């Protein structure tokens, strides 16, 4: 087995084995109840990996059956990823009712705007399909559609997560570690996918290179999830040493007013 093939199998199997650690840590910390969609996503990814592995070894190598199973798996996985993003939005704004209305507005507005951008790019992009091992029209169409859909979805998912990060940054909202890690991993994956699909369209580099980079990035995302899910949430304590002098007077006035009530 050549080094390239070994790297391929490592990048394919290792992240999914590591995802087992994510599942274990989630159950142990009770996070599977807080993030059921993410738990489902990780479980599905593991199942899909081993299903595809079985198909590639025993049914059709990387031929038509493999691509069909891959496309169905990708569609399901993508839907669950949307559910994970929605879950992150809900989890986040549940803690801050004062801005939950603005958050919902942001989710809808950003979804609509990103959908329009994704559609615009899908229409304007050339239908550059990666070289197919079989000259089958259905096979080529399926791969084209899969890549086009993947690109549109990456824009939507990456954009939604960036909107959430920007929103939380403006409002100085604190992220609980696992939620931050999940969003960071998802965001990195979506953005990297977006960059890879954009390059794949125009840059004449072997698809193997793109595939290996996408797999490597996914590996990195799994490591991010492990880091944030396994690591205990830091306890935060503070004690103020001094009071701003300019606010002292008004604060004392307010205290007197409160005491008089």
């Amino acid at each position: 087995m050549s080094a390239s093939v070994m790297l391929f199998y490592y990048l394919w199997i290792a992240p999914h084995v590591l995802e087992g650690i994510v599942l274990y840590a989630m159950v142990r910390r009770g996070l599977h109840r807080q993030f059921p969609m993410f738990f489902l996503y990780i479980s599905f990814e593991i199942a899909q990996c081993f299903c595809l592995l079985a198909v590639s070894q025993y049914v059709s190598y990387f031929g038509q059956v493999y691509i069909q199973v891959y496309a169905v798996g990708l569609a399901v996985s993508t839907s669950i990823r949307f559910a994970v993003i929605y879950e992150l939005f809900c989890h986040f704004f549940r803690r801050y009712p004062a801005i939950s209305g603005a958050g919902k507005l942001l989710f809808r507005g950003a979804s609509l705007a990103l959908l329009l951008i994704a559609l615009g790019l899908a229409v304007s992009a050339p239908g550059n399909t990666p070289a197919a091992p079989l000259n089958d029209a259905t096979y080529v169409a399926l791969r084209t559609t899969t890549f086009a859909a993947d690109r549109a979805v990456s824009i939507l998912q990456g954009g939604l997560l960036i909107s959430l990060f920007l929103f939380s940054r403006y409002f100085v909202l604190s992220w609980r570690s696992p939620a931050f890690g999940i969003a960071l991993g998802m965001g990195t994956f979506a953005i990297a996918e977006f960059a890879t699909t954009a390059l794949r369209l125009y840059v004449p580099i072997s698809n193997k290179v793109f595939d290996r980079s996408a797999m490597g990035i996914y590996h990195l995302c799994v490591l991010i999830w492990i880091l944030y899910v396994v690591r205990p949430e830091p306890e935060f304590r503070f004690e103020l040493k001094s009071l701003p002098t300019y606010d002292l007077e008004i604060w004392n006035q307010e205290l007197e007013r409160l005491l008089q009530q």
Partner: protein
Amino acid sequence: MIITLILVSVALLALGFLIRLAKGRALPAQVLENPTEHMRAVDLEAFRNLVDPEEEEFLRTNLPSSEFRRIQRERLRAAVEYVSCAAQNAAVLLRLADAGRRSPDPATAEAAEKLVQNALRLRLYALQAIPKLYLGMVLPGARISPVGIADRYEQMTRLVVLLGCLQYPTRGVSAAL
């Protein structure tokens, strides 16, 4: 090819943003060790005066049109500065109160929760008010009165006092928050 370059640049920028986020949050922990350094003075009376519709009407009727526009622009520029200061203070208080929400004392946790929600509302108002104030600078004739910010800021300071008293009952207000 240009589209690819744009898309890849956008993706790289987004990745850089995510890495920056992973390295540090909007307000670092050091802010919480000494928040007073990061808070800025807000003179509520002066702000109220700046955005008071009656004051504006008075100036409009008593000054020549060009002079009114110039003064109104200056007033609104100052108002933007006040709103930004209030929003900055709200951000610092938000981080402090967010930590207070985890207090084992229910009264402290409740006061911290109220402070968080008020500070968030204030930042939301600031987000809406600042573009309006800039619009007012472009169109000095337009009537803009974001007085709600001042009220919200006042409510917030009241909650700061309450939270401080609950957290440090024996040390008084000066040790509060």
